[in-house]
């Protein structure tokens, strides 16, 4: 199953008779990575589950027209990132709350979340990350937790490598300050 390369999966998907099978393989190959990427942005499991499903629905609808200008992997990440950011915006609009308030709610929910297994330091780190601006948060998560290359990140976020490095640097400084202040 995981032996298929992205190119092979796309070729398989373009064969209408094998489309469902190919899509199933794509879901199995990328569900973990995309889920954790989304989860670190929205924190709550149920929200991450909804967003992951919406992401794959968009992939299903858009994969036929996917031009292989970019890698399938970065394209999937881009959709997942956009879906997550849209979700956060909708939350903000729905409750007429500034995004900071929603993120404070997320911080509080971390401690009572049954699907958060981190220790005290990890909980504090997540809270520090939640204090960062959305884009900086994504950059930090992709670099720190997933150890993603800046080039791939640049393709996902459509931002220059230099700007991403600067963003990561600022994020690190802010998190260090958060720990120092506490």
């Amino acid at each position, binding site marked *: 199953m995981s032996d298929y390369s992205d190119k092979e999966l796309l070729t398989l998907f373009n064969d209408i008779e094998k489309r469902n099978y190919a899509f199933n393989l794509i879901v199995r190959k990328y569900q973990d990575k995309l889920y*954790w990427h989304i989860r670190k942005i929205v924190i709550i499991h149920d929200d991450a589950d909804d967003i992951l499903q919406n992401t794959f629905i968009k992939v299903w609808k858009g994969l036929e027209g996917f031009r292989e200008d970019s890698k399938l992997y970065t394209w999937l990440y881009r959709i997942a990132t956009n879906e997550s950011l849209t979700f956060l915006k909708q939350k903000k609009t729905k409750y007429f709350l500034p995004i900071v308030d929603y993120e404070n709610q997320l911080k509080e929910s971390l401690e009572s979340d049954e*699907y*958060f297994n981190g*220790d005290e330091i990890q909980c504090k780190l997540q809270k520090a990350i939640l204090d960062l601006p959305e884009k900086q948060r994504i950059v930090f998560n992709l670099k720190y937790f997933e150890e993603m290359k800046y080039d791939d990140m640049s393709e996902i976020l459509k931002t220059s490598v230099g700007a991403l490095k600067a963003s990561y640097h600022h994020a690190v400084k802010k998190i260090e300050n958060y720990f120092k202040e506490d």
Partner: protein
Amino acid sequence: MGKNNKTVEGLKGNNKNPFSVPDGYFETFPTRMQERILSENKEYAWAIKIFRYVKPQFALAIMIITFAVISITTINFILSNRTSIDNDLYTRIIEVDANEFTEQHFIDVLLEEKKPVDNHKKDESDFYIHYLLDEDIDYGTLIDEF
């Protein structure tokens, strides 16, 4: 650890994923995804079915509306142009015809009509004519002045 290491590098080792998922989540997700796609496809197919059913009526309605809009626009255009042409035409006719007739023609026509004479108006007219004659004022000069 947090108290001693104040740098993110010092937190290395804590970059393990602190989150978890319900048991069997990733095992069941592809099946749930397939079901969701099937239901999405059904909804899409349903929408297409409805569209196919209403398509002839919809096309007819669009045709009628388009025809009505074109007709109304054309009629309005013709009517607005015709009014301006008519005005121009009337002005020209009056100018041309007025030049073709002399004062005597008008007097003849009025006499032919044999209109009953209004005595009050006749007296007034006589008064004005006598005044003009007495003062030796030319009628043409008077017309030019006013």
